[in-house]
C-alpha cells in the first residue's frame, strides 16, 4: 500500500501540484501574451488526447486479440453513449468474461 509517509510519493505529488499550479497562474498572469490561436494553440489543444493514446497504445497492442476486441468495442460504446462509466464497464466485463471462457 502506497502511503503518504513515503518521501518519493510526497515528491511526486508536490511536483505534480507545482507544475499544474504554475501553468494555471502562468496562464492567467501572461494572459494576452499567449497565442490563443495558431501553432502553439493547436499543439496544446491536442496534447491531452495524444498523452492518453501514447499511454495505452503499447499495452493494447501487446495485449492480444481479447484486448484488441475489447478496445474497439469500448471505443464504439464511448462514441455512442458518451458515458465513461458505461463504456469502461463494457470493456472490463468483456475482458473478464473472455478470460473466464477461454
Amino acid at each position, binding site marked *: 500500500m502506497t502511503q*503518504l509517509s513515503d518521501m518519493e510519493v510526497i515528491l511526486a505529488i508536490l511536483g505534480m501540484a507545482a507544475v499544474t499550479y504554475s501553468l494555471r497562474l502562468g*496562464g492567467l498572469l501572461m494572459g494576452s501574451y499567449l497565442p490563443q490561436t*495558431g501553432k502553439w494553440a493547436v499543439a496544446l489543444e491536442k496534447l491531452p488526447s495524444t498523452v492518453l493514446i501514447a499511454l495505452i497504445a503499447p499495452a493494447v497492442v501487446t495485449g492480444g486479440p481479447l484486448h484488441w476486441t475489447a478496445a474497439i468495442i469500448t471505443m464504439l460504446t464511448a462514441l455512442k453513449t458518451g458515458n465513461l462509466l458505461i463504456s469502461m464497464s463494457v470493456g472490463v466485463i468483456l475482458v473478464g468474461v473472455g478470460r473466464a471462457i477461454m
Partner: protein
Amino acid sequence: MSIFNAFTNKGDFPVAQIRQGFQICLPVAISAASYGMVLGVLASAKGLSVGVMTTMSLLVFAGSSQFVAVDMWLDPLPVGAIIVATLVMNFRYLLICASLGKIFEGRPLLHKILAVHLVTDENWAVTMTRKDRGNPAFLIGGGVCLMIFWQSGVTLGQVIGNVLPPPEVLGLDFAFSAAFIAIVASMWKGKADILPWAVAALFAIVAERYLPGKWYVIVGALSGSITAVILSSLPFQKGARHDTAE
C-alpha cells in the same frame, strides 16, 4: 485571517454569486464525481492509500492528469516521468487560464493567486458560456463545488475498490485502457485527429521498446501533437487559422 479578509472585504466575492456558481456547476460536478469514482477504484487496485489520493486531488486538482499519474504509479516510483507527464497533460491550462484575463481584470494579484487553483475544464466552460462572461466569484463557487464532488467521488471509489477481488479476476487490468479509450473518444473532433493519434500510438509503441521506464508516453504525446501542428499548417488544410499568431 488575512486570506479570509481578501475574499470577503469590499464585496469582492459576493456570496450570492459564489452560491450561484456552485449551483450551476452541480450537474457537471455530479458527472465529475462518477469520473472520480472510476479513478478511485483504479487507485485502490494500484495500492494507493486514501491519504495519498486525497492529497493529490486537493493539490493537483486536474482529473485526467491524475488518471495518467495513477496509471504510471509503479514501484520504484517514476517521479520524474510522472511530473513531466503531468506538465504535458496540463499544458492546456496555460490557454484556459489565459482566456480568463477579462474576468479578472482590475483584480489584485492576491485574488488571482488564490482563485486560479480552482479553475478546471468544467467550471471554465460553464463560466465562459455565461452571457455576462462570468466573474471570479461565480468561477470560485463552481470550483469549490467541483472540488468537493471530485474529491468525494475518488474516496468513494477507493472504498468500493478496496472490497473488490484482485484486479485480474474482474478484468480490471484492462480498466485503465478502457477508461483512457473512453476519454479519448470524448475528445474526438473529426477526421483531422486520425493522423496525429496514429502517430502518437506508433511512436509510443516503438519508444516503449527502446526507452527506459515511462518516457514513451512523452515521446508519443509530443510526436502526435507536432503532427497536428504540421497538418494544420499545410496550405490545403481547411480551418487552418494561425495567421493571427504569426
